[in-house]
């Protein structure tokens, strides 16, 4: 053992990134990569399965909203917009709902090894990201097939993905770290995320919603993400986030909520991380 290795270092106990950031990153990579391989190479229909769900949901919703509610005629490119929205929201929902039980499911690892706690929900979100990217390939094939030509603003779609990824990660951190203590977090979240689904312009476009509901939607931190995605990718004439909220000043409310959720996530997670092993 070298002299340097003999230097005593503090053992600080478990934490979000306990054991060093490099080790946490390597663990994250290994877990996400093996999980990815398992999903897509483990079964012959791996990729087909992961596509089947959003596509079937898309088919049903498209039929209902164009045939029964005639939304299609009022929203330009409604079909592809719906598909894009479903895939994006599907990512958010999949990541957060899988994350709820992620730490509880990894009980033996958490209670018996020095495992950086943050890696567990992060691996879940990352796995949903892989899924999302593969689904987006299909979505863009549809977009091109529907006659929308590529534009420079497509590059801004990366901002949309980053925004969605960050809030999905933040909520996953909150849910996964509170779940060991409060076992009904999952049930509560399934109700909230259903409400979010209808409170976000996924099935509809913001301009066709009337006043009181529109004010509620304007508070939703997810709404600006979907509105910008629509404007940048599908319809440059669609109202962007600011227009939908009714001005840049009003846009500060959902952005404020968004930032608050992220800060809260970091605070809750780092507060809970050292104690998770004892709560399980």
């Amino acid at each position, binding site marked *: *053992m070298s002299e340097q*290795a*003999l*230097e*005593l*270092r*503090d*053992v*600080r*106990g*478990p934490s979000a990134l*306990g*054991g060093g950031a*490099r*080790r946490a990153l*390597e*663990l994250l*990579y*290994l*877990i996400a990569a*093996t999980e990815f391989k*398992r999903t897509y190479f483990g079964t012959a229909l791996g990729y087909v399965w992961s596509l089947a769900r959003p596509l079937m949901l898309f088919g049903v919703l498209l039929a209902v909203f164009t045939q029964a509610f005639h939304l299609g005629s009022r929203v330009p490119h409604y079909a592809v917009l719906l598909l894009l929205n479903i895939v994006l929201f599907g990512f958010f929902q999949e990541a957060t709902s899988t994350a709820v039980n992620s730490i509880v499911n990894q009980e*033996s*690892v958490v*209670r*018996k*090894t*020095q*495992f950086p706690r943050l890696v567990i929900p992060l691996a879940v979100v990352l796995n949903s990201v892989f899924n999302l990217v593969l689904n987006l390939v299909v979505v863009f094939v549809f977009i091109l097939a529907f006659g929308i030509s590529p534009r420079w603003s497509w590059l801004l779609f990366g901002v949309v993905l980053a925004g969605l990824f960050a809030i999905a990660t933040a909520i996953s951190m909150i849910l996964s770290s*509170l779940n060991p*203590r*409060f*076992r*009904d*977090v999952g049930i*509560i979240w399934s109700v909230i995320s259903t409400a979010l689904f209808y409170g976000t312009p996924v099935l509809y476009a913001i301009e066709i919603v009337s006043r009181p509901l529109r004010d509620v939607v304007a508070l939703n931190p997810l709404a600006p993400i979907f509105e910008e995605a629509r404007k940048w990718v599908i319809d440059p004439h669609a109202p962007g986030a600011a227009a939908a909220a009714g001005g840049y000043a009003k846009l500060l409310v959902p952005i404020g909520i968004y930032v608050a959720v992220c800060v809260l996530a970091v605070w809750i997670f780092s507060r809970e991380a*050292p*104690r998770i*092993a*004892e709560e399980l």
Partner: protein
Amino acid sequence: MAVNQEIEAPAGSERRARLAQAPVVIEARGVEKTFRIPHNRVDTLKERATNPWARRAYRELHALRDISFEVHLGEFFGIVGRNGSGKSTLLKIMSSIYRADAGRVRMAGRLAPFIELGVGFNPELTSRENVVLNGVLMGLSRREARRRLDAVLDFAELRDFMDLKLKNYSSGMMVRLAFAVMVEADADIMLIDEVLAVGDAAFSQKCMDFFRERRAAGKTIVLVTHDMSIVQVMCDRGMLIHDGARRYIGDPEETALRYYRLNFGGEVEGTRAHVVPDVNVRVVDAWLENDAGERVDNVEQGAPLGFNVVVEARHELANPGFTFEFLTADDLRVFGISRTLELSPGQPDRLAPGQRVRVSGRIQNPLLPGRYFVSCWISRNRAHGDLALHILRLLDFVVYGTRRAPGSVSVESDVRAVPEPLPEEEA
């Protein structure tokens, strides 16, 4: 060499003196840990929301109180205590699984904790993936972990199964893999909790061999155990924890003695066969000989066993009795030998401190081929049937030969199988 327990030679004291001078690699100062156990566990947000002001009453469990100790480089350090004494909590704090409420723990070097054998294995992954993951978990980089993979798979003899998911492994294969991971961990400090509690006799034998090898290689090991024979034989120093507090630290024999006292000292009921709270005999040497007087650890089937044990009384020992049991690898007793001191007329039936006794002789060997162990019980005050020393696995040896039969021993018999004449056919 048939002697399985490492014998405390004078080199032992030199070793201890040298270790005491070695740099400190683990330092714990005033470590405290309290668990709050609520009387009514509130574990849903709904309950919390419906009675937000309900008084939450806790019972405080002081798992650790003001624990301080140091471990030196190359030391084999034993932590002993009864169930619930806090020893596993301490190990978990050292392994960064729990956070101490107060106090400070510092360590030097890379640490490999083994709270359980095969912990962190994911049954859905292949053994190749699991071994790499496990390596990274123990602080190796991915590249180092991949490099280690070959060594682990070779040691476990599982190379042909490396792409099989762990859930399809037999329990034997799983233990082999987990053990190989531990052997190849090659960390500066190993923290081990009761790994020996799993597995059969052959497995715990393998563990002991591994410990001995690590110890000889100058690795630092902290072992949490209730097995006092390991403490006495392997450890350089021991620490006794009781009710979360440090009761003793130092000499392993003394640690074991105090542990026994804690466990059995207060017992008044159970007058018969209760354990004497003293560890006052130690085994100096134990071996098997062949007819030529050479020490052997493999014995031919049917060849007599030259049995030799030398023990030394540490304190005065009245009316000592010696029982040796021959066990199969599955811990089944095959036979035993009990002896008391052979005394000349007028000689008192007791041993003075430091006095040695040699138990030896030839034993007719009825054992069938296989692996056997000899365990030893030494009692004093035979009338009360109490026990002074119980060393598990004093010796182990293999009987080789070709005549196999069911069971563990062959016995003399003239049992024969003779065909009877056919009955006359009726016309």
